[in-house]
């Protein structure tokens, strides 16, 4: 067996090539004209990148850039055998890749846990600390985002607006809110109502068209006031903003521009937690009871809008409690004594007409 082979050596100090003889002695000896230029202990020898067909080595305990280049022949195979840790730094090896996967999963896991538990907790604690003036600014910013998604031009007729004001006035009084509420009916045909940070409440005409009594509308608005009172939209904004900022970090969008848009969108999807929804329902029930009206119509309206809630894909993402459950709770909370109607029949009719006549297509969508 040949114990030596020939090669080219660069000492890492200059780019002058040395024609050398490589010997497998006590160390890997690199010899030029009988003079030992370097002796590399075998366990420190590592492979360097080579083009196909040659074999390149470097060492960890000598000059950083020193390189030994040999033809990939029989002797190279012996050198390979003699260097036990030749490929330990190969990043494409199974162990190295496994380690990268493991650490990535650990990092992703910790980010996900932070997103699931850390951020909601932080949002819970931070929300009361956010000054109302700041919340107002946030509300304005979100309002612009919302306007890009929905048609939020306000509906306005003299009689309709007067009726709407009266209704709002009646439910705001018992709700005890920390901020002034600015509510309006807007033209979007989607059956929904949303509360923005800073006390802005939008009732979409799509929902108004589906409503059959002032009690139903009052219930929906009181529910939204519940979100205003508990500053749920502020909380959801902090939470969604934080979560998507984290996700952005994970996938490389540090600017957070995606985060801001996502946060606003979440708000319009009304993805409050179930607890927040139950609390908002609680305020709606309280308000309606104090007016001597049954909250049951609110539950009926919800069921009419959602339809009997099936086990569709939506269930996975839906955050509202099931409509059937909510209806049961509201039906059970009917007050003992009935108060006067919230709006007169004439006022109710002008409120219904505030955006013009109801669209016939919406009627056909009704499930009941």
């Amino acid at each position, binding site marked *: 067996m040949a114990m030596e082979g020939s090669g080219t050596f660069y*000492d*890492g100090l200059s780019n002058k090539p040395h024609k050398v003889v490589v010997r497998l002695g006590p160390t890997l000896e690199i010899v030029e004209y009988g003079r030992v230029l370097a002796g590399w202990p075998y366990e420190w020898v590592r492979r360097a990148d080579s083009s196909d067909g040659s074999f390149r080595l470097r060492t960890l305990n000598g000059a950083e850039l020193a390189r030994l280049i040999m033809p990939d022949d029989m002797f190279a195979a012996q050198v390979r055998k003699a260097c036990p840790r030749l490929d330990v730094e190969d990043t494409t090896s199974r162990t190295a890749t496994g380690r*990268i*996967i493991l650490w990535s*999963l650990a990092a992703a896991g910790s980010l996900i846990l932070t997103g699931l538990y850390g951020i909601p907790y932080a949002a819970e604690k931070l929300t009361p600390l956010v000054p109302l003036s700041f919340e107002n600014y946030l509300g304005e910013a979100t309002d612009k985002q919302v306007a890009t998604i929905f048609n939020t031009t306000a509906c306005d007729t003299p009689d309709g607006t007067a009726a709407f004001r009266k209704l709002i006035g009646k439910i705001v009084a018992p709700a005890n809110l920390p901020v002034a509420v600015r509510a309006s009916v807007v033209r979007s045909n989607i059956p929904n109502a949303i509360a923005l940070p800073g006390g802005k409440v939008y009732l979409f005409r799509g929902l108004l068209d589906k409503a059959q009594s002032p009690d139903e509308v009052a219930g929906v608005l009181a529910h939204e006031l519940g979100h205003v009172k508990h500053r749920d939209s502020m909380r959801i904004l902090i939470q969604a903003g934080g979560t998507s900022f984290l996700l952005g970090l994970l996938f490389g969008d540090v600017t957070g521009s995606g985060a801001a848009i996502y946060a606003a969108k979440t708000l319009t999807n009304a993805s409050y937690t179930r607890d927040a929804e139950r609390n908002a329902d609680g305020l709606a029930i309280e308000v309606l009871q104090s007016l001597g009206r049954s909250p049951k119509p609110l539950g009926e309206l919800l069921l009419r809008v959602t339809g009997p809630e099936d086990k569709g894909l939506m269930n996975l993402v839906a955050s509202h409690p099931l409509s059937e459950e909510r209806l049961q709770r509201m039906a059970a909370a009917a007050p003992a004594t009935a108060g006067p109607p919230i709006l007169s029949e004439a006022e109710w009719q002008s409120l219904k007409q505030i955006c013009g006549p109801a669209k016939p297509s919406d009627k056909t969508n009704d499930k009941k």
Partner: protein
Amino acid sequence: MTDQVISTNGPSPRPGDRIGFIRNGGRFLHLLVRGALLQIVTFGFYRFWLTTDLRRHLWSRTTLNGENFEYTGRGRELLVGFLIALAILVPIYLAVFLIGIWLENLRAFSSLLLILFMFLFGQFALYRARRYRLSRTIWRGVRFWMTGSGWAYALRAFGWQILVVLSLGLVYPWYARWRESFKMRNTYYGDAPGAFEGRGGQFFKRGFGLWLLTVGGLLALGAVAASFDWIRLEGKEVPRAASIALGAAVSLWLLASAIAYPYFRAIEWRWWAQGVRLGNVSLHSTLRGGQLLKLYLRIIGWVLLLLIGWIVIGAILALIVHLGLGDLKLLLSETSARMKSPGIFHIAVLVVAVILYLLILMSFGVVQRFFTMHELWRIIVESLTVENVASLEGVIQRGDATSALGEGLADSLDVGGF
């Protein structure tokens, strides 16, 4: 390799200087596909190691006079650079975001500030990323390296680019000359300094025809359209034939501009190669615009093919789900309804959909990277000839490896890079 002839030192030009690229597209593709799958598994974190693997492949298969280059950067360094970039950028973004909300009248100002910040950081990142890559490039046991202030570069690049925009691109050749000169002046191989001797006027002369075709053409079209508007304002009719001709001219202009782009890139590249000096080494490139155009067409072709492939696969999957799994779906959703929890079936569908989406995204990334990295690199290296490499004989090792901060910034700001 071992059969190298070692000549005595001296600047005498050797006819034997040769630069080459050893093709192994299969292995590169293997790295890309493997990396794409690993990126899905590691939530994207593998990108640092993938980039490193790809660079190592390209560097080590590029040879100058029989000795290959070596890329000594590591994925770990890129990860650290990314984390440091985060630590710098996140507070800046948060501060600008809060200023924008809190002080409403400063909002426009603060977003302008952010754009300026982004731009400067982007230029800084480009410079520092080049510095990182260069200082990880080894040939014959000596490293390339760079000095120079990234901020000085970024500020001047900002000024130049304003001039370029104001001059409708006419100043671009002189900006390119300044840019390459700044970079090459600060570039070294061991103790051999780099320089750039290309002249702006030269580039201008070669590119002016293309400028006339694209920017000049756009101006002419704009003028014609404006004159039509003026005629209409006068209350007169524009002849139908004239309007149709304008429409045809616009489409022709769009096509011509798209084709002009690779030709422009080739002109710039040839000009750059001609101007670069490292010690006494000079380059010459025969890269033709047609080669780049062909490369772009190949990318478009493969992307279309991939698109058709995914549509077919999607249709087949939809058919299978629709026909075969109907009963299964019913069964699973009934069980889950009884358990009052989200359907297992739906979670499965969601997971499969997300994975499929990522696979589709990754497949396009693989195609894009294969062509814009491997094939572009190959075409460029194969177009090069080198002279006077012998003048680099006996160069002394100088300079240190720099940190990957620039790479991290470039990654987070999504500015180009390699």
